[in-house]
């Protein structure tokens, strides 16, 4: 039986099972059912933590309400493996955002926060209000992906949501504090970037030589502190 067809074992009428699909012979994607929320994300963290120590699992890569397993070699029996993962999904408690608290001082506005005026104008707020709202929030690292050490931060106040740009800014600096849709984050590489820059932080987000290379890990909490405002 192909596991890319829904198998839906009977587990009760309340919740659908995760969708499990293969990407080739060495990767398996497990997607939580339902809408995005932090409880489901916490279950994904717990699942990834547990699956990381399973035999033949090279790593468990956390996404947004999903986890990608990378295998050392193709699993012998994909059906049995999928069933075990579904079983684990139902019995694991959701993990709380119980990681460390990271405080990031931000220079808001100025040279690096070049999208702040547009964001304020779209939100119908003053630039100072945007800064206050952003720095008042407490955020949770949902996933680390896309660039080394880049944390997707959940918890942005809906008043300052701002869609990603259709044409990316060409050379956004590493350290740029950005808003992309309903998420915020700190750019870790100087590169083209479609998120909206509202400030800059001088924190080393990623260092491959450190024992723990990534400052942010899934489940950590982040607060942005106003270091300076340049309007």
């Amino acid at each position, binding site marked *: 039986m*192909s596991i*890319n*067809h829904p198998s839906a074992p009977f587990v009760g009428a309340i919740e659908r099972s995760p*969708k499990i*699909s*293969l*990407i*080739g*012979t*060495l*990767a398996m*994607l497990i*997607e939580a059912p339902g809408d*995005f929320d932090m409880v489901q994300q916490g279950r994904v963290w717990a699942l*990834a933590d547990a699956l990381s120590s399973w035999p033949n699992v*090279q*790593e*468990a*890569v*956390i*996404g*947004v*309400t*999903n*986890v*990608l397993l*990378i295998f050392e070699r*193709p699993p012998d029996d*994909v059906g049995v493996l999928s069933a075990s993962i579904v079983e684990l999904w139902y019995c694991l408690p959701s993990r709380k955002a119980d990681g460390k608290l990271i405080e990031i001082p931000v220079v808001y506005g100025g040279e690096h926060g070049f999208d702040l005026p547009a964001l304020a104008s779209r939100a119908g707020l003053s630039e100072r209000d945007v800064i206050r709202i952003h720095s008042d929030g407490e955020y949770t690292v949902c*996933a*680390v*992906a*896309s*660039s*080394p*050490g*880049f944390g*997707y931060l959940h918890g942005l106040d809906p008043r300052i949501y701002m869609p990603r740009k259709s044409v990316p800014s060409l050379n956004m600096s590493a350290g740029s504090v950005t808003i992309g849709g309903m998420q915020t984050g700190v750019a*870790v*590489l100087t*590169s083209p970037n479609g998120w909206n820059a509202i400030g800059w932080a001088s924190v080393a987000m*990623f260092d*491959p*030589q450190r024992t723990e*290379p*990534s400052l942010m890990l899934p489940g950590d909490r982040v607060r942005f502190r106003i270091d300076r405002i340049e309007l």
Partner: protein
Amino acid sequence: MIKILTSHAFNTIQDQGRNGARRLGVSTSGAMDPVALEAGNALLGNDRDAAGIEIQTFPFRLRFEADTTFALTGADHDATLAGATVPSWWCRRAKAGDILSIGAPRRGARVYVTFGGGIDVPLVLGSRSTHLRARFGGLEGRALQAGDVVPVGGTQFEAADRLDFGVEPPDVAIAGSGQSEDRALRVRVMRAGEYDLFSEPMQATFWSTTWKISARSDRGGYRLTGGKLTLDEPVEMRSHGLVAGVVQVPPAGEPIIQMSDANTAGGYPKMAAVIQADLWRLGQAAPGSLVVFGEVSYQDAVAAMTPVNDYLARLRATADLYRTL
């Protein structure tokens, strides 16, 4: 030591890739044709994951600063050592001062040079592969350029060892490899997560189209042209982890195959995934060349690695024997 004399853009130090750090947002990098790199290492008796140079722009020239064994694998090309021809898929011993010149491939896209003992740059997160975007690994995290001095590990073999022989390349040695009748590369894939969301005509288009690898293709991914794959209803995907070989379909409808430098995450619908046994062939497909997809089951995809592994094991055994004769 070797000194780089001529190197145009995008020639980098690569090994079998940086595994285990996707969860930190770190792409694997690694050779686009891992079979060629591993074969080059096997010819010299190196570990399979020793680092070599991946050359994808030509000509490339280097000078040996000490007596060093080396091997040339990957795309079929012309090369000379101190003016004398060196065939592809061949290993030889260079003397200090010898210049190795590598010309553009006749077929294929990437040539690998490996050295006895491997390239001795520091491991970063367990790998010597260059991560160009994050600027670490390889030589200072960047592409090679003229004037660079690259440390290579000492050759483990006595000077009396024979080191002037070659092997059959895998596209000749492995049955079922190579071009289909219309000169397109036939690549085996498995269906992936969103295959069933595409209508039957769209699925049929995916299988029947001879896709062209566009000029906007690189180590990050191949963009394909020649057809459009659209969904009847757009689907909202959440960002998830990616691996090399996944065939994604962005809203514009032209598929993208992620390759070695692929981002660690993405969220386009996934039509299929190129099987491991054919990824190296795709790694040798140049922009402008043609690809057709054929479907295989999971079992067939797993079994397809046996001839590849057998080929590499046979090559290593032969090379080990030949060096001691």
